């Protein structure tokens, strides 16, 4: 089927996408006999739309409510990117109207962080907030307030050479909600001293910022882990979208795996991951062992033109532009031998971007040597992300399941 611009298709989709908030019956995911999602205190609406910068393709956004700890001084911020590839909540400090107290070290100096993604960094203060989403809440959660004028980013931060993404325009979002595999955004390494410490966290007394060791519970934390219940992982549920895409898609983020009647694994298969969150994807007989699932990636990024057989776009090397949509198959497998094929389609990105749509199940691009199963993988599936060291009916995390 060719990826054509179709007004009729777009209008038809708008009706489907807007109907019901739950998506549980039209998810297309195989959940066996149990219904996943629906409504409930553990169900949080998410939406795939252009986002706060009005130009984001395949961004799943949600709203979070943050409060000054122990008070009813609260603020709800929408347009926060839902990211199963990272851990921790980050909000643009320029948008905060409530005064969230800074995290301090034992000597009373504020703690700041140089957070790194593979394509950007964010410098900002660690602050504390009571967090609410749907009926879930967590108290005094360390989050990152992105962008701070109090202390300039130190050389140890900027010299990664990655570009900063500390504005709505560069980030494409008002913040990032990391609901991934890990409890902390850094972990034991940032609680260590010496060469083990990668230097992401800084203590900033008046004399200036110095890289510091920060205890596990003072680091930016995965908010799901701090919920009283439903705290062993999340499920993202998004309906299928047709070949030409959709302007907006409504779905759900469901907290907890097997903790209620609406978040069971059903017939989803568990894929355990290694200590950095990878499993293996086999394509055309070749295994790629640095592969993973990530709702924060906005395409299926895999291999290169030579190994995928797909031409890159001439105007942007970040995406593939095959002349006609390509139907492909890969096999995901984990260390225990769980293995199943994944059929996917990659369409011409230029053609997709020429539609008025922002949700695409067939947007893809290069990623030499591995598979990054981004948001397109999530359409028409229930995708489970299980937190490290937490028990679930499918075993102890970390794992992905679908």
């Amino acid at each position, binding site marked *: 089927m060719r990826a054509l611009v179709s007004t009729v298709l777009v209008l038809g989709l708008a009706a489907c996408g807007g109907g019901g908030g739950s998506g549980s019956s039209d998810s297309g995911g195989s959940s066996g006999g149990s219904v996943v999602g629906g409504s409930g205190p553990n169900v949080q609406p998410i939406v795939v739309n252009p986002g706060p910068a009005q130009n984001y393709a395949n961004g799943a956004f949600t709203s979070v409510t943050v409060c000054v700890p122990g008070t009813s001084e609260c603020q709800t911020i929408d347009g926060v990117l839902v990211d199963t*590839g990272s851990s921790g909540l980050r909000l643009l400090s320029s948008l905060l109207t409530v005064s969230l107290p800074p995290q301090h070290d034992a000597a009373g100096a504020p703690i700041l962080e140089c957070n790194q993604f593979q394509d950007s960094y964010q410098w900002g203060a660690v602050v504390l907030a009571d967090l609410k989403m749907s009926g879930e809440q967590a108290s005094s959660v360390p989050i990152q307030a992105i962008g701070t004028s109090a202390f300039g980013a130190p050389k140890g931060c900027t010299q990664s050479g990655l570009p900063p993404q500390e504005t709505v325009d560069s980030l494409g979002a008002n913040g990032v909600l990391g609901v991934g595999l890990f409890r902390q955004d850094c972990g034991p390494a940032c609680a260590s001293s010496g*060469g083990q410490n990668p230097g992401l966290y800084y203590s900033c007394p008046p004399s200036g910022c110095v890289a510091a060791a920060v205890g596990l519970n003072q680091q930016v934390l995965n908010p799901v882990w701090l919920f009283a219940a439903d705290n062993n992982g999340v499920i993202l549920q998004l309906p299928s979208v047709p070949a030409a895409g959709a302007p907006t898609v409504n779905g759900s983020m469901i907290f907890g795996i097997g903790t209620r009647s609406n978040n069971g694994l059903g017939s989803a298969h568990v894929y355990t991951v290694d200590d950095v969150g990878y499993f293996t994807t086999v394509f055309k007989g070749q295994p790629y062992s640095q592969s993973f699932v990530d709702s924060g990636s906005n395409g299926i990024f895999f291999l290169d033109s030579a190994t995928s057989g797909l031409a890159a776009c001439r105007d942007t090397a970040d995406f593939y532009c095959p002349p006609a949509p390509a139907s492909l198959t890969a096999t995901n497998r984990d260390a225990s031998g769980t293995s199943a094929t994944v059929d996917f389609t990659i369409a011409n990105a230029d053609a997709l971007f020429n539609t008025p749509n922002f949700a695409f199940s067939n947007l893809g691009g290069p990623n030499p040597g591995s598979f*990054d199963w981004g948001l397109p993988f999530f359409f028409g599936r229930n995708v489970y992300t299980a937190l490290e060291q937490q028990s679930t009916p499918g075993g102890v995390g970390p794992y992905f399941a679908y």
Partner: protein
Amino acid sequence: MTTNRQAGGRTALVLALWTVALLSAPRPARAALGDGLPSIQGDQVHMQGSLRTAAMPGYLRHEIQIPTGTVVREFSSPAGSVFGVSWEGPFLPDLHRILGASYDSYVLAARTKRRGRGPLLLHLPDLVFESAGHPRGFHGRAYLPKLLPEGVPAEAVR
């Protein structure tokens, strides 16, 4: 800020770096990619890691295990030039250090506005740079296409 060096200029630069490395503390300001073998030991010391060298068909692969958990590999030609670096692990390595003289090109190119949110891929005539993965699980590489030894594919840099 990078320039296309002539072969003679590069040899002089490599010799100058060796001299600097021998005479001063084993920490050249920039090291690794595009430089010579002593820069690899400089990187090892700077990153407080352990170094292991393996002979591969047509090149050497030097592996530095950093205490943070990240592994950096540096690839040298038979002539002793580092033509590629790669990394895998929970945290990014010191890119300012291991990219050497290619760092400025990389920084400039990385600021080009992109529509993707996924791997950062830069394909310049003198530098290929890839940063992929996700927080707590990064992998990436950089190599100089013009320094790839005869018969060694770019795929070897991984």
